């Protein structure tokens, strides 16, 4: 296997981060972790991951805001983002867009909790796009 692709996992729940990390590491990816939005943005700049798996509900900048910030920065806008949502995704996204007046342009959405096989499948699709 060539040099491992880096995936950044951002979620405020350490148990959640750990299990996702194990799922991805099992497939040979290198996993970096962050536990809130600000730390997440910092890690993106430090290590330029190939994919970001991002939770929506987080302290210190939620997932939507992080997503918006990255997607409007030409330096990082091409990094695919997989948003982790806890409620039915379609609804919370439209409500959010309405309330905050900003477009959320994640590349894909996945509901929590995630099945290992489903997560890996979605991640691989996004990684192939680059």
């Amino acid at each position, binding site marked *: 296997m060539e040099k491992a692709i880096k995936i950044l996992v951002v979620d405020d729940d350490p148990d959640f981060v750990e299990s996702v990390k194990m799922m991805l590491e099992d497939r040979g990816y290198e996993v970096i972790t962050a536990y809130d939005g600000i730390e997440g943005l910092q890690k993106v700049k430090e290590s330029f991951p190939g994919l970001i798996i991002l939770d929506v509900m987080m302290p210190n900048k939620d997932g939507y805001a992080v997503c918006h910030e990255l997607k409007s920065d030409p330096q990082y806008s091409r990094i695919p983002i997989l948003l982790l949502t806890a409620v039915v995704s379609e*609804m919370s996204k439209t409500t959010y867009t309405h309330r905050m007046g900003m477009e959320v342009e994640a590349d894909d959405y996945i509901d929590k909790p995630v099945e290992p096989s489903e997560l890996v499948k979605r991640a691989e699709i996004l990684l192939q796009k680059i």
Partner: protein
Amino acid sequence: MLKDAKILVIDDEAVIRDGCFRILVRDGCRVKTVENGEAGLKLITAEKETFDVLLLDLMMPGISGMEVLDALRGVDDNLIVVVITGYATVELAVEAMKKGAYDFIAKPFTPDQLRIVVKRAMERRILQREAENLRKEKEKSLKDIAYEKSRVSTIINFMVDGVLVTDRESLIVLHNPAATRLLEIESLPIINKPLSQCINDNNLADAVDAALNAEESMYLEISREISPCKGEGVFFLRADVAPVLDEEGRVMGSVTVLHDITQEKELNRMKSDFLTMVSHELRAPISAIQQQLSVIQEGMAGSITAKQKNMLIRAKERTKGILDLINDLLNVSKIDSGIVVQHKELIELEDVIERTCQLMEPEAEAKGIKLSMEINKSLPLIKADKGNMEELFINLIGNAVKYNLKDGSINIRVLREGESLRVDVSDTGIGISEKDIPRIFDRFYRVKDNQTRMIVGTGLGLPIAKGIVEAHHGSIQTNSKEGKGTTVTVFLPCEKE
């Protein structure tokens, strides 16, 4: 005509008195006779009974007939007086008529002559009485109207909700103090001014215009949420506007009722924030547990035995059950607080259904169930919340999978029926017995028997489906045969092209 007519005869001649008495009593009159003016006046003024007709001799000892006529003025103006003149002098009769007598009869007279005169007098009397009744009635209804008017205006003025009435030209014709307070109108009076000049909010003026131009529809009500504040603090009003129609259904004006919903909105927002918070706090740990179970189960944290794996699979089923319950409870409270419909847009329902089917495919496949679709071409659009529609069909197709038999099938049909889009979700499952059908839309109701015992469910799926359909002004029904299968049919109103 003469029956029960009350007649008084005043004449000094006994022959006349007796004659009149006999003739008139035979015709059913009730007759009294007196021999002089004093006695006559006494009867008329003192007695409780009133007379219809007075036959009055003009030439009498004591006070004369003329004097009796004078005395009667102001005492009983309704009494019809016929004077009896001894000499048949026209002058005297004319003078008597000037004093208010109605007719005269000359002595001597025949019974028929008397009858004709009394009959004519009675006709007059009846007409007079009817006119009197009409006048009284009119007076009474005018009084009623005045009373009713003041009562209605008192009610309107004391209402907490604002009331605003305009004419056809959208000029304000009536309003209560609450309306001007809620709309923050300071430049009073506003009567006869155009509505759009009096309020800050165009939304309301537009709604009123729409109601005024609603000529073709017999009944219409427009409900708008408006926020007319200019000063500090934000508040919201719900304005219900309806046209006022005349008897032929033409629009005469509009009536608007304004209701302050600021607090309701605030409560709704708090409730929804609270629900979101609770959902996150409950879901997060369970999601984490379930995901950790997945990692162990898949051997990503080291190898496990088959027995351990089986237990993990069952544990995961239980945590999934809790997550489903949380989701369903959230949805139920959303429906209760009326916030189920988040964002209505024009959608192609068949797309949503197709996508939902793809989503459910793996679950169906695992049970060997065939999913098929019959979708008619060029279906109309509907106005709906996409998320709600997904939720609805995940629920219905999910049930069709859950309660199906191994190797069964599910067929989904989408077609237009009148002004509605009709969707049938049919399965070949265990079906629902007749006694259970009326209760399946009840919350937490689940059919419990040997076949359903092993099926995990919350008993909230169908109530949620019903809530969603009803929030979109549609209807939902179930047809089922035990052991044969169930068809759930949803009707949703099409958008007019």
